[in-house]
């Protein structure tokens, strides 16, 4: 159970000037500005939930996570994780969380991964029985045994990330923070990482806070997503809800039989029939974006079948990626829906 109320973090930064001259005068400068990285964030996360924490680069995701791990002290507001304040009860808190940073390694670089696991076992004082049981569970989920003897520095990024994720679960923490666990991985490895996370969450009931720029991660793993932009939470609800809020958009792609009908006349016919509100036509690949709030896609299809002659057609959902892109591009528009 994680409760975050009105969390704010402000950094004091020096206003840097340009060039060498600027760098020299910066040495004596007292010209500070205050940057609010996280502004009045409130989230409640239930036990066992996987929540996607997304936002553009520099939105304040990492800062929030650093505060939740107890490394940074909040400027104001409060965080309570399992009844504890992470910053004040840091030692107790850290025993009970696991962390994966996609850009950093927590394993001992030149040693076989087995050695890293052993040290982690000692650091977290994991009992032998629990340790063996966890290893067995991991082996069931991914094929790791062949990797145990391999030094981390010789592993591929994919192999290493699997080990990193597993290492974060080794002491059966109640909360795990995964900060871009799939960064730089190929499709197949991304898939096995997602599988691993999902299974670990199911088997151990771990609460997982996941940040990622790959919306596929979010879509396959999370039921709920919180979007942060410029330090404020602008959306916090289910993925379904997010898609709905932006209208249920479907896209129809047509390849017209141009001997009979030109793209221009087809476009005119469609907009005349349904109006600008209901459909938007993108000229380049002739894709028709249908807003299902205004007109059911069935109706548009029926019209196309009836009135237009075409060679090929396909239809797609608007993915989470499109929706999130719309939110980012719209800036900090408040679409808060709780």
């Amino acid at each position, binding site marked *: 159970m994680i409760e975050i109320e009105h969390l704010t973090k402000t*950094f004091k930064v020096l206003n840097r000037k340009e060039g060498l001259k600027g760098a020299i005068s910066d040495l004596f400068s007292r010209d500070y500005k205050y940057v609010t990285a996280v502004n009045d964030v409130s989230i409640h996360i239930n036990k066992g939930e996987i929540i996607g924490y997304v936002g553009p*680069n*520099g939105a304040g995701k*990492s800062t929030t996570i*650093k505060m939740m*791990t107890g*490394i*940074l*002290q909040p400027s104001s507001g409060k965080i309570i994780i399992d009844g504890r304040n992470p910053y004040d009860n840091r*030692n*107790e808190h*850290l*025993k009970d*969380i696991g*962390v994966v*940073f996609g*850009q*950093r*390694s*927590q394993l*001992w*670089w*030149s*040693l076989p991964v087995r*050695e*890293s696991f*052993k*040290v*982690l*076992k*000692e*650091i*977290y*004082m994991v009992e032998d029985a629990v340790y063996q049981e966890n290893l067995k569970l991991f082996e069931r989920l991914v094929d790791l045994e062949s990797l145990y003897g391999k*030094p981390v520095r010789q592993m591929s990024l994919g192999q290493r990330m699997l080990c990193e994720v597993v290492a974060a679960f080794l002491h059966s923490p109640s909360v795990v923070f995964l900060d871009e666990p799939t960064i730089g991985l190929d499709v197949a490895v991304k898939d096995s990482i997602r599988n691993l996370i999902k299974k670990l969450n199911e088997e151990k009931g771990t609460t997982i806070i996941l940040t990622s720029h790959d919306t596929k991660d979010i879509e396959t793993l999370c039921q709920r997503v919180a979007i942060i932009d410029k330090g404020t939470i602008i959306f916090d609800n289910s993925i379904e809800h997010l898609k709905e809020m932006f209208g249920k958009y479907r896209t129809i792609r047509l390849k017209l039989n141009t001997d009979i009908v030109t793209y221009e006349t087809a476009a005119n016919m469609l907009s005349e029939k349904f109006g600008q509100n209901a459909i938007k036509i993108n000229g380049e690949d002739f894709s028709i974006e249908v807003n299902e709030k205004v007109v059911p896609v069935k109706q548009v299809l029926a019209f196309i079948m009836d009135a237009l002659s075409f060679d090929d057609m396909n239809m797609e959902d608007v993915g989470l990626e499109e929706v999130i892109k719309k939110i980012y591009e719209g800036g900090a528009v408040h679409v808060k829906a709780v």
Partner: protein
Amino acid sequence: MLKRYRGIIRNCFAEELTYREHFIVMLLISVVYYIVLYFVWKAIYAGSGSSINGQTFADTFVNLALTSCLVQCLSSEIEWNIHFTILDGNIIIKMVRPLNYMMYMLSEKIGYVITHIITNGIPVFLVVMILFPGYLHPGWNIVMFVFCMCLSFLMMFCLEFMAGVFAFYTQSVWGISTIKNVVVGFFAGSNVPLSFFPEGLYRIAQILPFKSMYHEPLRMLMDTSMDAHAYIRVIGFQFGWCILLMAAAWILFKIMSKRLDINGG
């Protein structure tokens, strides 16, 4: 409690051993160093008779070899480890462990120092005992020597840790590390012999702990005239400084952790 740090010591030591070539080169370098030291002083003595300043060639060589050996064994410059993890932000990995950061760093230093003792410390002491019999008087004083060295080690660690933690604020450790090395080297008398110091500076050097870090443990092995009283005085002096430095390091760490922000996303 301490069991949690055992693995870190073991891994740091194992990491040093992993790179076999590096390990062998380290061993070779120390062998070459002592050979050079030997012949340089041999040449100096060949030019100026059997005794300089009342010391024979063997006196000088044994003293220099053992001192620089202890210097090698104690210094691992842990501040540079701290420096690099601050620069690339990887310090967060160490910070999210349920460990005391100062103890964590101490464990790493122990891991490194064990390597130094094996590649440098033990060989040099053995060679000196075989080639220059009569200088070292191993007996029950070895226990005192080891204890004394542990205190020196802790003091050295505190100095390095303070230099490293300072980088939480400055983001760079180079300047402070250099100052630390110069001050320690100067007052330990390893650059200029202490007997050359003017009266005032000599007094200061006696009060500061740096001289006793190397000089006193060695005296325990070499000077048979030391009585119980002398032992207690030396250890008491070191113990006091040790506590003082540890407190200072801890306070500095507490202050500096407020200044730490983690680099990178």
